[in-house]
């Protein structure tokens, strides 16, 4: 009896420790572009030579660029020299190694106890600086600053803003010793660092969605033994229950201007799409059909909603003007298309495409109506676009349960995002954050 109690106490202690200790995600590259751009990132100069810098800026940038699958970063041991300013660069040495782009920089601790990060991106062949900035930072912000530098390099060399300095939210599921499950809603940097728990529950949590300003999120929680939709402030943690009617309260999706949420409610009989105006707390019904209508997503101009409906016999994607009108079917490939999400330019819609019991992430071209399949696994779901539209993060289910993966929209780059233990699912990639 004593032993049993002792064991229980131990469980309670370790259980509560887990509350504060979210596990980081590790990213593994499965596949990159055929000819990744060679880039050399030299360890940054550091003003306090007596101590190690708080963050290895060059390493963070190097990991970001390699992980994108579009760059091959030279290994540190192969660097022919370690310049920290433009005049110190020996262009001939780098050219001999076939290196095209070089990043150098300095990290300085200033008198206020904060940091200055200064960097230069250099074109070896032209012997010219492509970009150079000094970014003020703090110890807590240094990793973020490094990701911002990665964003700039990506933009200068690929032609589109990088999405490294962004965050993701996702749901994890872990089993307690007694077999019960613990659900948690977490946020981390896009590279899996700094995971933090936003909500933990013994009841399921699903469908997390970002507000367009990246300050709040909406989600569904079953903590009151039925689905209910909540809005939560990320920084402060305060939250507000916005829908808890009889039946389903689910599928929150923020309008691009942040003023409204599309919701799925079945309070009037069966699942229908509604628009909830956050400030006035008013509700407007959009769909009216005896079939299932659910999981609406907003086009980037805020004028259209795409949603899943089985009014035609099986789940397919339909579009309807936000102001109302007759929904029009837009997906025709396969017997199952669901989980729509507009790309940032709204030219395509990511979907779950099901065919012969296999569920993959597809891209529905709005102009042609064709679905191109991106993934080659059997059970993929919950696609979410990076804010630059280059990558889609999604859930893939294998023998060990749910895990995250990401694929570029051209299919050339594939990553797996592994959690140390437990399941991780329903990723939602956050918006660009202005500094």
């Amino acid at each position: 009896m004593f032993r049993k109690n002792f064991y229980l106490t131990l469980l309670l202690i370790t259980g509560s420790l887990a509350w504060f200790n979210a596990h980081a995600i590790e990213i593994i590259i499965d596949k990159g572009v055929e000819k990744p751009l060679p880039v050399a990132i030299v360890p940054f100069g550091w003003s306090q030579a007596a101590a190690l810098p708080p963050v290895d800026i060059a390493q963070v940038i190097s990991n970001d660029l390699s992980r994108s699958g579009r760059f091959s970063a030279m290994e540190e041991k192969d660097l022919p020299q370690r310049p920290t300013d433009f005049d110190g660069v020996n262009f001939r040495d780098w050219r001999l190694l076939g290196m095209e782009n070089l990043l150098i920089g300095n990290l300085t601790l200033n008198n206020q106890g904060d940091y200055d990060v200064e960097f230069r991106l250099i074109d070896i062949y032209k012997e010219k600086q492509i970009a150079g900035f000094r970014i003020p930072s703090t110890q807590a912000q240094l990793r973020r600053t490094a990701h911002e530098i990665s964003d700039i390099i990506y933009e200068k060399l690929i032609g589109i803003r990088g999405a490294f300095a962004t965050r993701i939210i996702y749901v994890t599921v872990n089993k307690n010793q007694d077999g019960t499950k613990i659900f948690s809603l977490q946020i981390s940097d896009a590279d899996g660092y700094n995971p933090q728990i936003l909500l933990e529950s013994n009841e399921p949590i699903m469908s997390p969605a970002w507000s367009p300003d990246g300050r709040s999120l909406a989600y569904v929680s079953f903590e009151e033994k039925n689905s209910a939709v909540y809005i939560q402030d990320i920084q402060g943690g305060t939250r507000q229950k916005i829908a808890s009617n009889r039946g389903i309260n689910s599928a929150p999706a923020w309008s691009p201007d942040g003023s409204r949420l599309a919701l799925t409610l079945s309070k009037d009989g069966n699942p229908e799409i509604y628009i909830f105006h956050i400030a006035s707390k008013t509700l407007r019904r959009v769909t009216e059909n005896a079939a299932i209508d659910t999981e609406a997503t907003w086009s980037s101009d805020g004028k259209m909603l795409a949603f899943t409906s089985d009014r035609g016999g099986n789940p397919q994607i339909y579009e309807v003007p936000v102001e109302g009108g007759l929904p029009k079917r837009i997906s025709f490939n396969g017997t199952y298309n669901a989980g729509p999400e507009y790309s940032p330019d709204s030219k395509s819609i990511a979907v779950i495409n099901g065919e012969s019991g296999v569920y993959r992430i597809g891209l529905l071209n709005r102009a042609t109506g064709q679905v191109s399949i991106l993934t080659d696994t059997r059970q993929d779901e919950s696609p979410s676009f990076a804010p630059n539209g280059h990558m889609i993060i999604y859930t893939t289910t294998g023998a060990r349960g749910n895990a995250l993966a990401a694929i570029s929209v051209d299919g050339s780059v594939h990553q797996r995002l592994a959690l140390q233990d437990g399941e991780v699912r329903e990723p939602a990639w956050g918006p660009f954050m202005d500094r």
Partner: protein
Amino acid sequence: MSIRILFILLLSLTFYGCSSTEEIQDDASVVDQGRTLGEDADSQAYGASEGDHQGMSALDDPNSPLAKRIIYFEYDSSDIGPEYRTTVEAHAAFLTANQSVVVTLEGHADERGSREYNLALGERRAESVRRQMSLLGASATQFRVVSYGEERPAVDGHDDYAWGQNRRVEIIYR
């Protein structure tokens, strides 16, 4: 007269109480007595004064069709198979006879495809069971319909067996 009824009741309590104690190991004997009385013709007098108690006891009989509390479904379907007819009818009859009893119909789906679509599908399955039971006489106030979609699987696997076990409606009395 009343003494005689009491005597019979006491007799049957003792008799059935003992026999059922052997059948079911860990249940409180009070519950067993209630159940066996419910099956006894003499129990009508007892049942008239505590109707619900008699009714609830039928739920504890492992041989009653009421003991079946799960209805399974085909992929992407909310049609109730003919093999569940007895189950649905038994629960509907029980609810009709016990108007104060409220039942929770909990709809579930397998893990494949969209989570939100599955949440809707779970509700449609539970609604399908509710509709049938209502048609058979249970009243609207006796149901609480809730869907968990794929969020609360009965079996945690990722194969046909697990999926078949997870596409279900659970009939829950509290």
